């Protein structure tokens, strides 16, 4: 049985420990405010720490995110609450109160030293979603090598309770009896930085409903391209073949009324071009094709990036992919309708196909806090032009993709803006000018 045992007081609460949440937290902490960051996963870092490189600079994503994660973790003004669920966020008597559930790791966080002895000895292999499902982890595991905090957790749904982890743990950190704990965070202001997830890969039956081998999502390709990826090189997941021909299908989850995602996800063109360029480096002899409706290269340096990709020999085909089927030898057959020339329907075969899936929100505030969502299901901004981080709830701001699809550059800029709004709000409160 859970009971409310603790209550913590902070100036600011940040919900979400991805790049937006971390940037907001760091900006507030640097101004001397005490900040709590609540993250649903067992590690901070969000989607960005799972990427290979970023566009248009081709900087290593981990090299940018890891220092932010470490800075947040070591900042005296920031406390990280990972593997936590926000049950409610309400305002009473001028204070925001968040009811939080700490999910059990079945590992004592004060004792675990992250040595991974438990993980090496555990006999159960489980599909590793951190590696796009292309590798396996154990039932007791640390999410990835640069996870923060470096704490193991047990996936009880796959644990045989064999006792091996407890036997080998040098600090007696395993606690099979751990229970969920409920606590309250009180803060004067909050920032919602809850990020996004991709539209499901099996959503569209015309694209094989997730059943065609070697059709993967763009985030799965990020793992294939990452230095610490599942194979440490790009090979196709069905049989380990080094692909000679790779295709990208753009707008595979966006701008599609049939999927309920009529909007443009804004980053798919650029991440597809980025991945195509990285693939050209990793597999210099491979043919890379991008099937697109139109290329949206709107940011600083993006158009040049697109032109560079064309100059590198990446083939851009203006076409709509109508159908994806399994071909021979585990290849993928695409039925495409060309949108240039005579508009004919042609079939093309590739070794590996990447669906540029769209972005949808990863969190719905309904029933948790009185913040509403827009028609696109992302958090509604009340002054989208003049103050895009303001929500309908006083003292609660929004940052990053929680408010709508955007790239990392815009996410970080908006996270800074949200922190500034929160800082102003806190200063107004302390000077007694709040309404």
């Amino acid at each position, binding site marked *: 049985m859970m009971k409310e045992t603790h209550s913590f007081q902070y100036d600011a609460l940040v919900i979400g420990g991805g790049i937006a949440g971390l940037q907001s937290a760091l900006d507030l902490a640097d101004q001397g405010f005490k900040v709590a960051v609540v993250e649903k996963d067992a590690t901070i870092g969000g989607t960005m720490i799972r990427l290979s490189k970023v566009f248009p600079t081709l900087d290593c994503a981990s090299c940018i995110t890891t220092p932010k994660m470490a800075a947040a973790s070591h900042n005296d003004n920031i406390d990280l609450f990972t593997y936590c669920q926000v049950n409610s966020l309400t305002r009473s008597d001028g204070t925001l109160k968040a009811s939080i559930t700490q999910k059990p790791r079945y590992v*004592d966080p004060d004792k675990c030293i992250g040595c991974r002895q438990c993980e*090496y000895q555990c*006999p*159960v*292999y489980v*599909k*590793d979603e951190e*590696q796009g499902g*292309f*590798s*396996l*982890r154990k*039932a007791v595991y640390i999410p990835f090598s640069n996870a923060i905090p470096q704490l193991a957790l047990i996936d*009880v*749904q*796959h*644990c*045989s*309770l064999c006792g091996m982890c*407890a036997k080998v743990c040098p600090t*007696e*950190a*395993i*606690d*099979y*009896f751990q229970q969920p704990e409920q606590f309250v965070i009180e803060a004067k202001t909050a920032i919602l930085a809850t990020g996004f997830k991709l539209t499901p890969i099996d959503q569209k039956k015309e694209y094989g409903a997730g059943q065609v*081998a070697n059709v993967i999502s763009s985030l799965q390709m990020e793992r294939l391209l990452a230095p610490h990826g*599942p*194979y*440490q*090189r790009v*090979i196709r*997941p*069905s*049989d*380990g*073949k*080094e692909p*000679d021909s790779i295709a990208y299908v753009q707008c595979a989850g966006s701008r599609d009324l049939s999927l309920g995602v009529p909007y443009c996800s804004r980053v798919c063109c650029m991440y597809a071009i980025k991945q195509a360029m990285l693939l050209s480096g990793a597999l210099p002899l491979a043919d890379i094709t991008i099937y697109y409706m139109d290329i949206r290269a709107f940011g600083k340096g993006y158009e040049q990036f697109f032109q560079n990709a064309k100059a590198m020999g990446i083939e851009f085909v203006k076409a709509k992919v109508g159908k994806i089927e399994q071909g021979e030898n*585990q290849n993928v057959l695409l039925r495409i309708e060309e949108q240039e020339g005579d508009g004919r329907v042609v079939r093309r075969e590739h070794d590996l196909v990447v669906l540029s899936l769209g972005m949808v929100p990863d969190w719905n505030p309904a029933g948790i806090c009185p913040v509403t969502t827009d028609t696109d299901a992302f958090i509604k901004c009340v002054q989208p032009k003049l103050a895009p981080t303001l929500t309908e709830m006083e003292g609660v701001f929004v940052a990053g993709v929680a408010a709508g699809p955007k790239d990392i550059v815009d996410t970080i800029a908006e996270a800074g803006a949200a922190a500034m709004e929160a800082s102003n709000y806190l200063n107004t409160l302390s000077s007694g000018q709040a309404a």
Partner: protein
Amino acid sequence: MGKPDKEAMKALRQQRKAYIDRAKQEIKKQRKLIKAIKGQIREEAKTVPRIAAATKLPSDQVLLFIAAMRKYGQVIEVDKDGDYFTYKLSAEA
């Protein structure tokens, strides 16, 4: 946590029986599969399709376990054979 109480562990096992039974089944299947893969690459480095053909296992399953065994230090990548890389058991395995 010190050594868990025997009665409490018994109760916990009862509570998680469905998960435990499923995990035990998985362990059995996985051990058989890993043994079959190890048997193929103990002496000679082989590609995933060759291992799959010899063990009659689906090639995606073979690659999944090869990736996991590499991660935990049991398998190493050796050379390339056509479009495929070859894998062998590591000295530690």
